[in-house]
Each structure stands twice: as structure tokens, then as C-alpha cells.
């Protein structure tokens, strides 16, 4: 005790400079802003440049120095894309695939997540471990047998070949389960049970409304993932009935050397996800940040 008292009072030293104090309070200085703006520019540039090329005449892509500001030929190029390939069909297919997959993943994940978090049943922990384990499995590596199955079913070339394997995800179940653990107090469900509620009614009237924020985040991620999916649509679909990503591949690997056309298609293909991103960016950022911290 005395030892503590005798120690010289910490003279608020002339020491910590303004810089050190700022460091401690972690307020951003000008260099931080400069670096962040550079990162932002680097992130946005490729997408921006693709848009610029899409709005220029075809010779702009080969010009030196490069063209870096948008021109007035955007709609002309878009029209050319839709004239050259059946990009409308590809967009439609992608909307159907991503929409169905999103609704299904959100619904089944919410249902299973609720059961794992709030209902007791034999084997629950083993089954949950199985789900966590399968999250890490690269199912893409089963692509050959999956293709054989689809041929067997006569689904190869049809978009349900892309939809059906995507109807559930391990991540979705796990994500919703984590959310329910925290979001719904057990007492609330107990009270519901006392009133004679069947578990399906508990799900419908208590769990589902409470799950809305998490379900929305899961839906956003699932939609973007389904929209951007490349490998499986590439092998199972045909050039005549593609998703957007498959159509992009066909366009880029076709005989055309008109890269303005290809880049315009790439720009169009990012519009839906970009729209989702601009509308719900805050939720997407929050989702990644909260999904990462497991607990």
C-alpha cells in the first residue's frame, strides 16, 4: 500500500506528442484519409472503367492515352448487346434462379435454424456439427457426378439444374441458428408452449417475425452469390439457355473481338447486384462484420 503511495505521481508528461495522443484516441489523420481514399479509388476503378468503355464508341478501348470519362454511347452499346446475343433471356434466367434460390435458402435456413437453436431433439448436436463440418467442404469438387445425375434426370441444360442444388446452404442454417440463439429468449417460447402453441405456430408467430433482420441479410448474400455463380452454370447449361454469367463467358470466348460489346455486357450484368448493394450496403457491411465474429 505504502509502496503505491510513495511512487511519484505520474507527472502528465510533456511526453506524448499531439501525434501520440491522436494515436491513443485513434482519430484519423490526413494520411489515413489519403490512404482510405486511395483504397476506395482502387476498389471502384475497374467497375467505373468498365462503365466508361460501355459508354464509348468501340475504338475508344484501343485509344492511347486511355479514355477515362464516360461518353454518350451507352444505350447504343446496350442495344447492340441485346441484338448480338439473347441477353434478355440470360437476365431472365438469372433473375429466376437467384430469386428462387434466395427465397428457398432463407425459408429453409430459418426453419432449420429455429429448430437447432430453440427446440430439443435427440441427435441435435451431432446434426449441427454435421452442418458446421459440411460448410467447409468444397462441394464444387463433386461436379462430375452432379453433372451425371442431371443428365440422368434429363435436367442438363435446364435452369432447374442450377436451382435445385442451391435450394439450401449449410452457411444459411448455421447463420440463422446463431441469430436465434441470441434473438429469442427461451421464456418467450415457454410461454407460448404453456398457451398450447404447436411448434410450427411458435415458429410462425414468434420466430419468423423476430428473424426478419437476419433473414434479410442472409437473403442479400444468397442473392448476390446465386447471381454471380459461375462454374456450375457454365458446365450444366447450354449457350442457348444460359444465365448471365454463362452468357458473359460465351460472349467473351466467341469470335467477337469487339471488347466494347463484351464490357458492356459485363457492365449490364453487374447492375442488379450493384443496385442491391447501393440500397442495402449498410446491411451487407453489418452482415459481414457480425457473421465473422462467431459467438
Amino acid at each position, binding site marked *: 500500500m505504502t509502496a503505491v503511495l510513495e511512487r511519484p505521481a505520474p507527472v502528465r508528461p510533456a511526453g506524448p506528442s499531439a501525434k501520440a495522443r491522436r494515436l491513443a484516441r485513434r482519430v484519423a489523420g490526413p494520411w489515413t484519409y489519403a490512404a482510405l481514399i486511395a483504397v476506395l479509388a482502387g476498389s471502384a476503378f*475497374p467497375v467505373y472503367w468498365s462503365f466508361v468503355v460501355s459508354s464509348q464508341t468501340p475504338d475508344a478501348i484501343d485509344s492511347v492515352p486511355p479514355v477515362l470519362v464516360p461518353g454518350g454511347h451507352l444505350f447504343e452499346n446496350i442495344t447492340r448487346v441485346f441484338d448480338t446475343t439473347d441477353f434478355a433471356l440470360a437476365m431472365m434466367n438469372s433473375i429466376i434462379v437467384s430469386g428462387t434460390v434466395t427465397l428457398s435458402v432463407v425459408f429453409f435456413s430459418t426453419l432449420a435454424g429455429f429448430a437447432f437453436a430453440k427446440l430439443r431433439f435427440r441427435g441435435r448436436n451431432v446434426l449441427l456439427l454435421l452442418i458446421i463440418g459440411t460448410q467447409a467442404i468444397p462441394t464444387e469438387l463433386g461436379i462430375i457426378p452432379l453433372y451425371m445425375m442431371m443428365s440422368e434426370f434429363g435436367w442438363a441444360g435446364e435452369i432447374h439444374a442450377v436451382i435445385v442444388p442451391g435450394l439450401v446452404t449449410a452457411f444459411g442454417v448455421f447463420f440463422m441458428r446463431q441469430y436465434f440463439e441470441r434473438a429469442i429468449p427461451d421464456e418467450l417460447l415457454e410461454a407460448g408452449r404453456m398457451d398450447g402453441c404447436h411448434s410450427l405456430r411458435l415458429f410462425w408467430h414468434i420466430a419468423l417475425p423476430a428473424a426478419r433482420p437476419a433473414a434479410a441479410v442472409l437473403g442479400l448474400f444468397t442473392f448476390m452469390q446465386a447471381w454471380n455463380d459461375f462454374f456450375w452454370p457454365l458446365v450444366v447449361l447450354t449457350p442457348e439457355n444460359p444465365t448471365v454469367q454463362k452468357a458473359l463467358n460465351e460472349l467473351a470466348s466467341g469470335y467477337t473481338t469487339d471488347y466494347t460489346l463484351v464490357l458492356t455486357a459485363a457492365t449490364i450484368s*453487374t447492375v442488379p447486384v450493384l443496385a442491391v448493394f447501393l440500397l442495402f450496403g449498410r446491411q451487407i457491411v453489418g452482415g459481414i462484420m457480425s457473421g465473422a465474429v462467431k459467438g
Partner: protein
Amino acid sequence: MALIDKTARRHRWDTKFAPYGYVAPYFLIFGVFGLFPLLYTVWVSLQHRNLVESADAYFIWFSNYAQLFADPYFWNAMGNTLSLWLLTTVPQILFALGIAQLLNRKVRTRTLFRMGVILPNITSVAAVTIIFAQLFGRDFGLINWVLDLFGAGHIDWQAGTATSHIAIASMVVWRWTGYHALIFLASMQAIPSSLYEAATLDGANGRQQFWRITVPLLRPQIIFSTIIATTGNMRLLAEPLLFNPGAAAATGGSDRQFQTAALYLYEQGFSKWDFGYSSAIAVVLAIATIIVAGLGYLVTKRIRTE
């Protein structure tokens, strides 16, 4: 009395069996379309199954694997895969740490910056690769133009092994760094500021604080990110495929200089229609991924936590 019986029975049925009904859709669909194909890959890899030759398949046991291990194209593809794994995973984690550190300051318009770093992650891999392939173009590419300004001269990015790997790695790093940065940021915000204040009073500068406090405390997230990144980066397919699109896209360059193992799997399976051989590649790639992820785990686990 009968009524109570009925309610009780219904209640017991509900608590005993209904939960299985709720989790069943997941297990059914995943079992049929996820797990089964994966396991069946092993079976197919033991067969001679070439759709071009005939519709019949027969067992040849480990012949596909014997052929694979003697196949120089396969080893070339595995070498490219490992090179790209290193060139993507390491910068991804390091840049992500740096960006997270920047974002962890008290910044105005922080939502804008956070959305900015995640923007690349929401764009599709096909679109990104098509865009980057143009940026890395030999004659009119923007990157060569910039290099020219500095007098570095033109680089034929696709032609060389090293240059093509750098170009492809840059696409992956661009697309994924922000995602990992946000994961790190979330954990950084949970570090009590008193730790930094104490360190500042002890005279530790920013760099020391970063390596001695921040990084060790982020160890679990760094391990997580390394493993996630590894499983993704070991099976790159769209980037090498679309970097050089065209009739010979599946070979990954004229000399297979950027053909990854996943792309070789694609070439054997869906351009040569040799399903048995292709499945053997899938199995070996899966095992290699587990080994490399384990390696990544061992390395990141050694981050000091004092």
C-alpha cells in the same frame, strides 16, 4: 378426458418428431445434391469413364491416379495452383490487416469507406476477369500504359508464367481483400482501447502497437480468413479461364502457364469428357486443399499471443 389425451399426444408428437421435419429439407437436398456427388466422385475416379469413347464405364481401380501422377500437365497445374495460392492468400491477409487498421480509426463517412472496400466482393468473378483482362491487355491495356509513363515498357502479361500469375492474383486479391478487412475490423473494434492507451504511455509507437497488440489479438480471425481464403484460392477456375477466353481457354494459356488444377479438371471433364480422370483430379485437389489449409493453419497459429 379424451380431449386431454389427444392434446397430450399431439404435444408429445410435436416435441419429439416435429423438429426433425424442420431440419429434414436441408439434409435431404444437401445429401442428394451436395454430399452424394462428392462421395461418388471417389467411386467415379476408380472407373474408366470417357464419354467420347463410349457410354460404358468399367473399373480400373487406381489406374487414373497412376496416370495422373505421371502426367506433366497435372503437375504443371498443381504448381500453378500453389503459386497462385501463395500470391493470392498472403497479400489478401496482409492488405486486409492494413485496411482494417485504417478503417478502425475514427473516420468521418465511415459507411462510405466500408461499402467501398466491399464493393469488389459483390461484383461477379466473370465480369471482374473480363474487365481485368482488358486492363492487363498487351497493346492497349491501361496498366501497360501506366507502366509506360514510368518508362517500364510493355509487358505481355499473358505470355509469361510469373506475369500471368501476378495478373490473375491481382484479380483475386482485388475481389477478396475488402471482405477479410471487414472481418478483421469487427474484431479490432472489440479490442479495449485501454490496451492502446497503456501502450502509448509506455512509449510504444503505432507500428509496435499494431504488431504487438492488434495482430496477436486477431489471431482467431486471421486463422479463419486464411482457411477460407485457401479453400477458395486452391480452386480458381473462372479467372484463368476468362483471362484468355476463346477456343483454347481451358488450357490456361498457350503453354498452360496459368492452368490451375481446377481448370485442368474442367478441361479433362468437359472438353475431353473423361469423367474418370477428371474425378481423380478432383479427389487429389480436395486432398491437396486440406493439406494446404492445414499448413496455413499451422503458420497462422504460430502468431504470438503474449
